[in-house]
């Protein structure tokens, strides 16, 4: 299967800090990839580079064969790559429904619909329904219908996360990057939330990359795992293999335990 997204040799420095060092990753169409690694390992930097928020110092990113390295985030969104955020980026003073409508408005405008000289109610491209129906439908898919008329800033944490992800679905993305979709949610709820997200997302036929710290969630939902450490990709394999990799165990999964072992060994010596 052809790679829908191809990152080659990505490097990124922030002064003395190396956030990305020779990152290579080819993502296949329709796959579900989990990005794991400790904080500061470079996962969000990777996402920021793919979505154009940061420009890599070296390296190229290709999407469906096209070089998107230098494009602005809004252009990349228009091409079909959407992302959600670690801290949900919502329109605080608007209701959940209005948040969705704002996003749909942009999609309409980018398609040249609903402008100053247009008449009637345009159909949203990709959904073939009027704007308000698209909003209701996506809200329902994510279980957010009851929050429809509540202001975004008063929504509970998990609901904000879901709304943030729901917003990404408006533009019918081909690739979805989810930055810690279940963070801040209790362990019992993580699975149910991921189930709902995956069902809603996969129904649209998107390729998914998600950042996750809970290894059980990763094993359950990812077909492939990219493990980050210190700006490098240290493992690229299916979860069963990747999570057993000694380097991954040391630097990602069991990092804390390893340091504890070292400290105890020093103490005894």
């Amino acid at each position, binding site marked *: 299967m052809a790679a829908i997204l191809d990152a080659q040799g990505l490097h990124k420095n922030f002064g003395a800090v190396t956030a990305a060092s020779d990152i290579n990753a080819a993502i296949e169409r329709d796959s579900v990839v989990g990005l794991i690694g400790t904080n500061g390992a470079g996962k*969000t930097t990777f996402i*920021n580079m793919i979505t154009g*928020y940061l420009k890599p110092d070296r390296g190229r990113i290709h999407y469906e064969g096209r070089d998107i390295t230098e494009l602005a985030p809004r252009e990349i969104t228009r091409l079909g790559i959407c992302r959600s*955020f*670690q*801290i949900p*980026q919502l329109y605080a003073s608007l209701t959940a429904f209005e948040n969705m409508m704002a996003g749909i408005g942009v999609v309409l405008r980018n398609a040249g619909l609903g402008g100053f000289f247009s008449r009637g109610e345009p159909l949203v491209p990709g959904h073939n329904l009027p704007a308000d129906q698209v909003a209701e439908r996506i809200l329902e898919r994510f279980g957010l219908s009851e929050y429809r008329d509540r202001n975004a800033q008063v929504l509970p944490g998990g609901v904000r996360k879901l709304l943030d992800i729901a917003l990404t679905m408006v533009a019918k993305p081909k690739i979805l990057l989810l930055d810690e979709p279940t963070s801040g949610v209790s362990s019992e709820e993580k699975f149910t939330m991921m189930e709902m997200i995956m069902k809603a997302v996969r129904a649209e036929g998107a390729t998914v990359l998600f950042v996750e710290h809970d290894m059980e969630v990763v094993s359950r939902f990812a077909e492939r795992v990219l493990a980050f450490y210190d700006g490098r990709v240290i493992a690229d394999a299916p979860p069963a293999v990747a999570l057993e990799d000694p380097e991954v165990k040391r630097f990602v999964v069991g990092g804390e335990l390893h340091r504890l072992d070292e400290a105890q060994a020093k103490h005894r010596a």
Partner: protein
Amino acid sequence: MEQFIAVLIDGIIYSAWLFVAAIGLTLIYGVMKIVNVAHGSFYALGAYAAASITGALLAHGMPPYLSYAVLLGSALLVTVIVAPLIERGILRFMYAKDEVVILLITYALFLIFEDVIKLIWGVNPYFVAEPYGLLGSFDIGDLTYPYYNLILVGVAIVCGAGLYWMLKHTRTGKLLVAVIHDTEVSRAMGINVDRLYLITFTFGSLLAAIGGAYTAPTISVVPGLGVEVIVLSFAVVVIGGLGSLPGAALGAVIVGLVRSATVHYLPEAELFVIYLVMAMVLAFRPRGLFSIAEARKI
């Protein structure tokens, strides 16, 4: 060559005046993160208080050499009464609002004060020229300068050095620096931010009042005094960087010298050249010439 020296000296005098006028504004912004339009009101209040009190005391036979202290005293008096009233009475309830809204609130206060000043002091000009003429003048080549201008420069240096010393070497000063860097963390560490806000606002306004008080002997004190000062102070503070004290000094020097040069060489440009510099700085380095790096947002 002589004209060059004139430009330099005039520039320094004007810079000194600008510095005293603007330093309080940048201090208040740095600590409280508010742009205080009412700063111009304190300048005017200082000028009016100084002119009326000094004038009255002189008329009653006060030795003229005391007038320099009286100028300071008047500024102190009027600030200590008015500033806490404003901060505790009105601003205290507004800190949670958007910074533009707070600016508009201070603008409303400025408008109110313009008329309060008229109600208290009337609309006729006040003159208190004795302190200005008392010291005589000195010559540099063909140019004559009143010694009073040296007082102005002296006041600027004292204010600047004093503020610097206070921030570095006093406990209150160090607490202020903490708040300048991060208000939330300071509060979390138990610093009484509310009390510091009161101190800052009073002190910053006092500096404006001192600026007005020491300018009073050189002009006729009329209504509308604060109007031009506030915009010029904005220019100085923006050029140096909002909240930066060395920036205010640099901004004052730049604006002072540029204006002085323009007045001598290109008088038509006198009024707008300062705002041109302000616009250019805003365009290329919006955080001013002394800017701090910004942290990652997402």
